[in-house]
């Protein structure tokens, strides 16, 4: 069905630079192929290349591509346009960006149907496709993308991909922006559709768990080359390429669990904490209207001195709200939040004295957002201190703690990789010598191998400095590998709190057991 021979893609501006370097790939009819690799390895380019259109600024430099007998690269654009969606259809990455915000769902389908010149009953046909992907189609066609949840949008995108009954369906990171439970359902849908329609499936993901679910044949890519490919069981059980080995080892699994030393004294007491967040919308001539949501609802637990406390939950569970309340970025509605024996943390950040501020520091989720792009690393690390007090040796020592070289001092964040940015952000927090380090999904934007390295760095810091950490993540495997105790939040409520081993082995709540179950399957 798909035959790639020495397929190479180069950058227009610099034809010597190959994004894909002589890729060979043969896929039979109805096969399920998973392409896995880290960001920048060329896996998305390969997927786009299968449509004959490698992307803006790129061109096919060498090799042959045949999909269902068609040479999609060589043919005129108009001819290819007629075949896209029919021979090969793409379900793009980036749920939020892939549907046009001002157009309803039906009109997205109209675009696709129009290619067949058989428009007919667009809403009806769209609705039946949407029904097929598990949505209530009739109600959905008239709605706009922003009225849909992430999972619903992903289903719409899959339905659009299936609209012309393609021979080959390409999926680019189908679940990367979704909560675990939703992702699980989407992968189930993909399996069902493949069984029912028998198309050839090519799925790209950075997540081995996803590939394990949907693929029977795995292609491992690194730096534009296919480093290993073969049947799923063979590659995952007996990898031959060192990069594959590294990738498999780095993937977080529910494995070794550290146990908490008992009778530690509490550092932060969270007592019946409730945080109501309001989103005020107002105009000059309208009175203010407020929508309020209870982001944290009567939550009680404690953070113990010197421990790593894992906080887990999906989007909207209140885990970020908890961190923001600790920092004084949000108003505490009721209940209390105490640091040590005396300090009241319901005081907002502006009113907190410097000595309290310094005790709690935070590292953020998005590496691209957490460092000022205009500042050098030196300035980031020495911010807030008089110039005379800071010397390079001190800063270099700080960088060493997070596994970076002194030469980084003169760089700015656009010159750093994602992992390096997060390390600098950790160093910035450590520069304040905090007692409590808040880590908000600090590795979720990183590649698995980079994630493993950053987690190791954090463990080393915890071991050497004994800093108390609150580690927030949606990934229970990552949390379990870091934390000694775990807090599970759902819809603003405390679902479970306890030692990691207890929570994993004897979950009290069906939500926790689902998370554990899904993580075990990876």
């Amino acid at each position: 069905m798909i035959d790639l021979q020495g397929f190479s893609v180069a950058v227009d501006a610099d034809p010597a630079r190959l994004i894909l370097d002589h890729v060979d790939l043969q896929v039979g009819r109805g096969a399920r192929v998973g392409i896995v690799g880290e960001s920048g390895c060329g896996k998305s380019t390969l997927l786009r290349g299968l449509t004959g259109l490698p992307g803006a600024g790129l061109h096919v430099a060498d090799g042959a591509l045949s999909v269902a007998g068609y040479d999609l690269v060589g043919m005129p654009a108009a001819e290819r346009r007629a075949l896209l969606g029919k021979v090969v259809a793409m379900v793009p990455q980036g749920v939020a960006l892939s549907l046009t915000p001002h157009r309803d769902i039906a009109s997205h389908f109209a675009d696709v149907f129009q290619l067949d010149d058989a428009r007919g009953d667009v809403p009806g046909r769209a609705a039946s496709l949407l029904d097929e992907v598990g949505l209530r189609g009739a109600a959905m066609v008239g709605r706009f993308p922003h009225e849909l949840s992430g999972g619903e949008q992903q289903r719409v995108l899959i339905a659009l991909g299936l609209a012309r009954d393609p021979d080959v369906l390409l999926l680019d990171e189908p679940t990367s922006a979704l909560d675990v439970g939703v992702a699980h359902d989407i992968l189930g849908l993909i399996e069902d559709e493949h069984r029912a329609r028998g198309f050839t499936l090519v799925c790209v993901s950075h997540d081995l768990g996803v590939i394990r679910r949907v693929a029977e044949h795995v292609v491992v890519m690194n730096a534009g080359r296919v480093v290993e490919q073969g049947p799923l069981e063979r590659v995952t059980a007996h990898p031959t390429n060192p990069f594959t080995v590294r990738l498999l080892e780095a993937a977080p699994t529910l494995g070794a669990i550290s146990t908490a030393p008992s009778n530690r004294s509490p550092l932060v007491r969270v007592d019946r904490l409730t945080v109501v967040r309001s989103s005020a919308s107002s105009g000059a001539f309208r009175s203010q209207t407020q929508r309020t949501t209870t982001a944290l609802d009567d939550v009680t637990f404690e953070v113990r001195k010197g421990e790593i406390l894992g906080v887990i939950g999906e989007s909207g569970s209140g885990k970020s709200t908890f961190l923001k309340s600790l920092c004084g970025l949000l108003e505490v509605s009721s209940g209390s939040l105490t640091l040590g024996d005396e300090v009241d943390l319901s005081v907002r950040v502006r009113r907190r004295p410097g000595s309290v501020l310094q005790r709690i520091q935070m590292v953020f989720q998005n590496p691209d957002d957490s460092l000022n792009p205009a500042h050098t690393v030196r300035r980031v690390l020495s911010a807030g201190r008089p110039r005379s007090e800071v010397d390079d040796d001190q800063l270099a020592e700080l960088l060493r703690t997070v596994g970076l070289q002194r030469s980084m001092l003169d760089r700015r964040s656009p010159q750093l990789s994602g992992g390096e940015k997060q390390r600098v952000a950790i160093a910035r927090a450590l520069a304040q010598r905090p007692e409590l380090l808040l880590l908000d999904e600090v590795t979720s934007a990183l590649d698995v191998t980079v994630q493993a390295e950053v987690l190791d760095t954090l463990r080393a810091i915890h071991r050497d400095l004994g800093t108390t950490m609150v580690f927030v993540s949606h990934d229970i495997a990552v949390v379990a590998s870091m934390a000694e105790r775990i807090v599970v939040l759902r819809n603003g409520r405390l679902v479970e709190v306890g030692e990691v081993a207890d929570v994993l082995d004897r979950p009290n709540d069906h939500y926790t057991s689902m998370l554990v179950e899904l993580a075990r399957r990876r």
Partner: protein
Amino acid sequence: MTDLGRVTGDDEVLHTSTRRRRHRWASLGGAIVAAHVVLAFVAPYLPLQDVSEQHSDAVLQGASSAHWFGTDNLGRDVFARTLWGGRPSIGLAAASVVLAALLGFLIGTFAAIAGGGVDKVMMRVNDVLLAVPSLLVLLLVASFIGREPLVLIVTLAVMYAPPIARLVRTASLNVLTRDFVVAARLRGASRWELVVGEVLPNIRGVVLTEVAMQFTWILLAFSSLSFLGLGASPPTPEWGLMIAESRTYMSITAWPVAAPVVMLATLVLGVNSLVDRNGVDGAT
């Protein structure tokens, strides 16, 4: 992320050729603006003919070796007057735009940081100022208060600050939501430190672009004022005034009108293409 990945981010690849083209435009614009500024500076030291000396025997002549751009209706040398004519406009517009930028920055960042009611009131006042035709205000001020440079500079600055203030506010709000600002708050940075240390470096590019655009508007506003007889006063050589004085004689010779028009137009175009680069590079 590997090196390969970093250099092939879609954004970078996509814009390489556009960026190169715009850089060429920007250098051309920079050269034009630099030429204008240098000419305005050195005009008094060049061996030019006297700008106000009248030659009653040689009025409204075309270009010749004696008068490169010909003469106007009073027999004054148009070439000399054209080179001198940028001095009042460029100087006054530059002074006004610096003041306008300062005002705009202070108002914009203050509104962004204060938020709530203060922000709302400030922005509505800003909107009112935006809605008032600036030329009308200039005419009124020049007629009733005076046409001294200082008065004009302050008036122009006040009238052209609102768009800058609005842009500064929007851009600042964008930056203020980012995590590195939160990080600075958590370390106890003051509001002033946030504005100068965290926000300013990230909005510099887009704000400078806007300021440069406002410079061209102020330049044209002042020339219009002179054209209407309320800016520079005769016999000062000034582009707007030169156009006004000579337009009735255009059927005889176009030089006295064409020369200042070309100068004004090239300066505005030069500034516009110069700031195009900022649009590409942003803050970096």
